[in-house]
């Protein structure tokens, strides 16, 4: 058992650190640090994607002929941890991390040759059309129809929770191609141009007054049959295949560590303010002790999560398959990050009330009301309630884990 990095891993970490030092500018770091959701500023994400492409570090896990780079799970984890610590913007996952591996495994040669380079170059910006208004956790019940008419599919229906559909030009969809069978067996995986006639995009305003999510409507939208990925009715298998790519890229710890860094900044500000008012009687120290105890609890949980992630990424058997462990880490990571958010609220105190959306713009240089580190606390907390809903809710994850744990 060796929990420290090998000298090769440390060398890789130094390379990553050097790259981050040289390539992150204030705008990008602002985008990384002023996040109030899991996404960074859209434009900053694209700039960062381009910087990584130039370095050859964008397409992790893709074959070399398509511009990919091969990293071990530990290297991936190192890259993620270092990126979060340095304040790098988040990458948009839809093209490189989601569609890429699918095309590599199920796409035709023509699809690979045409689409993979356009993903890396940022020419194509993809979004993901899975959920529907009537199909959330029960995804296999999706109803958006794709009917064969000659050489085309004709699409009717709608998709929802489509992140950045309003900023994208393409969407990959799960569609219903057969209704007469078991729901999972009648789903196909289809690539669609968002500028096709009959598509309309409705932005959805979130609780922070910002738009990241959309609803996408399809009315008699014609799509060439050559846009089918894999075989007809193979879509469910393809969607499940994608889940495996979560393996090795566990990064909940890194994101939570960043939350703690923000919290540390905030408590430092409070400590400084407290000491500059030395001599003024305060309401007593009991609340701080409660805060500090809670903090220690969460720090221990953070440490446990880190150890669990490392135990999994290093490939040590926990006697459960990778898909189950991905669900374990998702449950633990998202629920813990929500608890950290709640402690951040306690530290920010009355400043959680202040609405100042403009300060989250990475190019904003004006003043901030209250401690700067308190500005994002309330919206981070509110937006992060979605963490246990998206990507398979905490309850769905527990169903998945239970299937492995209780039946095998």
């Amino acid at each position, binding site marked *: 058992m060796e929990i420290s990095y090998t000298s090769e891993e440390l060398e890789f970490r130094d390379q990553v650190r050097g790259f981050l030092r040289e390539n992150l500018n204030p705008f990008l770091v602002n985008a990384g640090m002023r996040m109030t959701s899991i996404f960074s500023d859209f434009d900053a994400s694209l700039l960062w994607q381009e910087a990584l492409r130039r370095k050859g570090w964008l397409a992790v896990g893709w074959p070399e002929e398509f511009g990919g780079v091969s990293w071990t799970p530990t290297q991936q984890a190192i890259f993620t941890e270092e990126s979060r610590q340095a304040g790098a913007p988040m990458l948009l996952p839809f093209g490189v991390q989601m569609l890429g591996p699918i095309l590599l495994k199920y796409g035709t040669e023509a699809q690979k040759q045409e689409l993979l380079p356009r993903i890396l170059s940022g020419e194509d910006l993809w979004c993901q059309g899975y959920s529907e208004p009537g199909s959330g956790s029960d995804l296999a019940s999706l109803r958006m129809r794709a009917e064969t008419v000659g050489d085309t599919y004709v699409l009717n229906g709608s998709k929802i929770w489509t992140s950045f559909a309003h900023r994208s030009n393409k969407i990959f969809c799960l569609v219903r191609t057969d209704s007469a069978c078991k729901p999972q067996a009648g789903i196909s995986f289809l690539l669609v141009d968002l500028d096709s006639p009959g598509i309309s995009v409705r932005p959805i305003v979130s609780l922070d007054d910002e738009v990241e999510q959309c609803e996408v409507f399809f009315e008699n939208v014609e799509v060439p049959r050559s846009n089918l990925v894999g075989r007809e009715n193979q879509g469910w298998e393809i969607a499940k295949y994608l889940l495996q790519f979560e393996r090795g890229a566990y990064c909940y710890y890194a994101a939570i560590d960043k939350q703690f860094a923000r919290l540390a900044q905030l408590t430092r500000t409070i400590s400084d303010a407290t000491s500059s008012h030395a001599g003024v009687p305060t309401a007593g120290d009991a609340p701080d002790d409660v805060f500090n105890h809670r903090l220690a609890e969460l720090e221990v949980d953070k440490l446990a999560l880190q150890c669990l992630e490392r135990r999994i990424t*290093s490939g040590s058997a926990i006697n459960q398959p990778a898909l189950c462990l991905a669900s374990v880490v998702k449950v633990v990571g998202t629920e813990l990050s929500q608890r950290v958010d709640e402690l951040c609220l306690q530290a920010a105190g009355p400043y959680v009330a202040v609405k100042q959306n403009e300060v989250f713009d990475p190019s904003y240089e004006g003043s901030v009301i209250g401690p700067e580190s308190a500005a994002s606390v309330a919206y981070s907390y509110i937006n992060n309630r979605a963490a246990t809903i998206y990507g398979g809710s905490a309850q769905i994850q*527990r169903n998945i884990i239970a299937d492995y744990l*209780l039946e095998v």
Partner: protein
Amino acid sequence: MNFDFTEEQRVFRDSARRFLHDSYTFEKRQSIVHDDAPFCAETWRACADLGWLCLPFSEQHGGLGGDILDTVILFEELGRQLVIEPFLETLILAGGVLRRCPVASTEGLLGALMEGQLQGAFAHGEISQRNFNGVRYARAEESPQGFRLRGKKVVVHNALAADVIIVSASLGGGSELGLFLVRPGDTGVGLHGYPTIDGRAAGDITLNDVEVPTNRLLARGPTAEIVLEQVHGEALLALSADMIGSMDTLIDRTIEYTKERRQFGSRLVDFQVLRHRMVDMFVAKELATSLCYAAATKARDGATDARRFAAAAKAKADKSAKLVAHAAIQLHGGIATTDELAIGHHLKRITVHEQRFGSTQDQLKAFRHLAGSDTALPSSIKKVA
């Protein structure tokens, strides 16, 4: 980076598991508990024959040269089967102090211990020290013969069976720590024994001007503090591992039971609310296990944050073990509240372990103060040194 045990360690774990599974059934365990003797001498001898008592001692002492990871493996198996024999007291505490303090009075003791001929106890806790690190009133005054010990130690596990008792005391009543070797037969040693709720035995020890020769002072000052700190750290990991073993059993038994038991025409395991509860049990165990293994590796490597990791591991094991035990009882229903099932006995064991070497809250406090954390908010409450 890897969290894998070596082939040798896996072989040891498998053989320990097989041995205890075959020879230390729950029925056997209960008969040992209800017997007059504090533990089963025959089992102890069998474990000595298997070499378990040599495990943590170096080859130069005649041991097997195992490290803390081997100890973790052993204690997982002990917890799994609710073993009541005093491995922690004799092997980790008394043995841990003795092997770090090679003075004349300890000669031959380790050899006897490894052969299964010697029992130990660690008399550290006092009525004033709920959290293990509080004020110490037991004092050692210099006397013409050596030292004169005075004070009272409470809830000393394995006190009645111990041939050697390691006693902590303040030298001259000051802040300097001394670790002494006391024999139960020494004049002035009073023992008041009682059973513990987890099927074992402990006792209060009074030291009424116990005269010990100078060579019974095993360590003093900073050396003694380091010995105490190291042994304390190992005890935290051993207890964590023991609770991980308990969790393993509790989860296995609960899954088995919910597959057999039927209510409302269905197996319990088919109810989603119960499935999710079992998932939470599994997740809690894996988190505690991951942290315990990482902490053990830190301790083995002598990392600067090893002690901080040990405190974190114990805090997490405490909490996870409670969560798992509570859920196991809840899912079994009434039957798990009886003496007949092992389930409740695991909760009793965990309840005792949670308060040993500092409660969960004490671990969190230690973790905080060892952290040098700049995240904490200011507080007027004085830090425990």
